[in-house]
């Protein structure tokens, strides 16, 4: 049997969840022995294989149209989708934006910032995608495994990866369950 293929990507994130993934340190070698690591934000291959992967991992919330595309593509191409971290699971810190509204957040960030000059303007380009209200991943696509945490602990990520690598669905509970 060939090794299961794993792809990952990030949406609206601080990238801390992927940093926490790297915090599994040398255990990544064990994981690499068990699985075929395909596309990730930190490898050359950026998109999951067209003919599909076994496990897709997404960190971050969905806060613009491009994220929605990435999320949907990953969902189409993977068998098991993992939401990694509080932003993917709940909307997280990113979702604070919903409390003031996208327009107001953009204006504060690009126009009213103390360091911008009079010319401050909100970037708009078709390539950038269009900002949307912030949503948790499972509001956009079906999620199979939720791994909350801000970020999830490296030990929890290692547990999740090793279970998935061995064809099991990880159970996040008790000491592995943290929402922050």
């Amino acid at each position, binding site marked *: 049997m060939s090794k299961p293929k794993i792809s990952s990507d990030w949406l609206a994130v601080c990238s801390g969840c992927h940093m926490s993934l790297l915090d599994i340190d040398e255990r990544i070698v064990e994981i690499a022995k068990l699985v075929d690591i395909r596309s990730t934000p930190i490898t050359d291959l950026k998109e999951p294989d067209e003919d599909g992967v076994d496990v897709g991992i997404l960190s971050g919330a969905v806060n613009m149209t491009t994220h929605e595309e990435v999320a949907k593509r990953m969902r189409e191409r993977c068998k098991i989708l993992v939401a990694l971290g509080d932003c993917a699971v709940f909307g997280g810190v990113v*979702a604070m934006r919903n*409390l003031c509204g996208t327009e107001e957040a953009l204006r504060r960030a690009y126009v009213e910032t103390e360091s911008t000059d009079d010319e401050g303007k909100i970037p708009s380009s078709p390539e950038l995608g269009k900002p949307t209200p912030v949503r948790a991943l499972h509001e956009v696509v079906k999620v199979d495994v939720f*791994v909350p945490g801000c970020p999830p602990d490296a030990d929890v990520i290692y547990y999740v990866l090793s279970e998935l690598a061995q064809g099991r669905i990880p159970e996040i509970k*008790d000491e592995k369950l943290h929402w922050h």
Partner: protein
Amino acid sequence: MIRFTIDGQQVEVPEGTTVLRAADQAGIYIPRLCDHPSLTPYGGCRLCIVEVEGIPTLQTSCTLQARDGMVVYTNTPKVREAREFVLTMLFSERNHFCMYCQESGGDCELQSAAYGEDMTHWPIQPNWHPYPVDASHPDFVLDHNRCVLCRRCVRACAELVGNFTLNVRDRGSKTMIIADLDVPLGESSCINCGTCVQICPTGAFIDRHSAYLGLDAEVEQTPSVCVGCSVGCGIEIATRDNHLVRVDGDWEAPVNDGLLCEVGRYQPVRDERKRIVTPLIRKDGSLQEATWDEALNLVAEKLKSLAGRGSDGIAALASTRLPAEALYFFQQLFAEGLGSEMATSTDGHAARSVIVNGQAGSLEALKTADCVIVLGEDLVKDHQVAGFFVKRALPQGTRLIVIDSGENALHELANYSLRPRPETIRDLVAGILAASKGSDPSQPDVATTSQRTGVDADTIQAVAQVIALAQNPVFVCGAGAAEAAEELAKLATSFEIPVIGLGGGANSFAAAKYGLDKAFTVNGQQAAYLALGDDNPAQDLAQQLANVPFVAVQASYVSPVTDIADVVLPVEIWAELEGHYVNLEGRVQEARRALTPPAGVRSNTEVLQALAQRLGIALDGNWLAELGLETVVA
């Protein structure tokens, strides 16, 4: 006794016990949010639902009384599914984001409940309606985004504290916790007792002083006693890395049942006074650092030269914030050893506990009283926790009679508010009691009492009637009625009405027992010794001492008194000391060390012992025995 089963376990509880409490006793945990052991059951959050054989719908175990033969299940698939649904709805209603909440990681009962149900996510996301954050209060912030509307705070404010500041507005999902008629907390009738903060199950109430300084699991909790006043509330001192984090009320404490006032909870964390950590000696007009030996020798030498001299000898004053051990040594050293005629305490002028039949009145009496007569004490300002017990009983129909010639915030809450002429409280009480027991030729009649006290006869008659009809009347005697204390004790004995005598500072009862009960005056003494501890000295104390040639101060903080001192001996503060406090009930309680004192600082007793040794005075005897308590309540 009621016998029934919970999850197959046989349980036996007294009649009237709820299923939730019975489960707690049996060691079976049923998740809950709105329920709290100190509050009456409410049934608001629906999290504590259980399945009961023979009842088709799930029941809230916090409001369900156990009955004989009942068969209860707390963990069936039906219960768990409903519980997760309740949590799902709670999370969908407001904006609960654990990653930036100070309670996350063990202190939040909502988060812990979700963990208990293995919830990895919210099936229904919030609707993103932003809720206000009220940051108008000096000690805490109320973030409505994290509120689950369990109303613990509202109920605690009313049922426990009797302040009725917090309430709710509107209904259903529009319900909001409000202060008074929806004003900012900082502008409300809030008295800053912080009970709402302590009782909130989520992070909605954010303590400004301790938020993010450590979760419960990260701080050390030291049970101790508050030294703010003579009520002697039980506290839990939370510390981390030898820093004070927070003071909580101890829910298990016999005196205060977990309640604290602003003085106990927030004054210690707001304290910004400058600490003294080395002995100081005045040289060339300014205070300069010295060794303990130099400082102690200088004080001992001075005291020795004045020993045995009367009015031009030594004036000595001890704060009633000092432990009983230190007050006892202080009395032995100055009054007995050095023969000072002016050895007293900072509460020399205040009321002493009223001893009836060898016993001080118990605060418990307030919890069952149906008529409280408060004399000469503003319980809204001082001895506030005793005031909570009075205020919270008023909606149950407890009659409040306030007798005070001066300002008293209780006047406006009272059923009868009596303002006798100064110095006539004793006459008024005697007159009222006589009238309440019918005619007694040995006591003045109502007309005479009215004439003497200036209180109209109808009111005296009405009050007498209320007391006569009361099943459990209680007198509370404060500083303003000190002149009447002894007479009151006699009257109370003959009329069999308990009297609670309010002292002043934490150890004012012990100070009075040791005879440190004169009003402090300085009149020609050649030296003054002030054992202030961590007390904030009275405004005029430094002025009183202005003409004393030699002033030695045993103190923790810089104050106007240390500024004029010739010698300053640095000592421990409340959270650093070990010792005992005797509250107004005569209850002996232990203060425990929660913080390690700075190097160079000594305990109050050590300093007095060191002086006694240099003066060749033996400090013997037993502080506890010398209290002369017939029974010691620990």
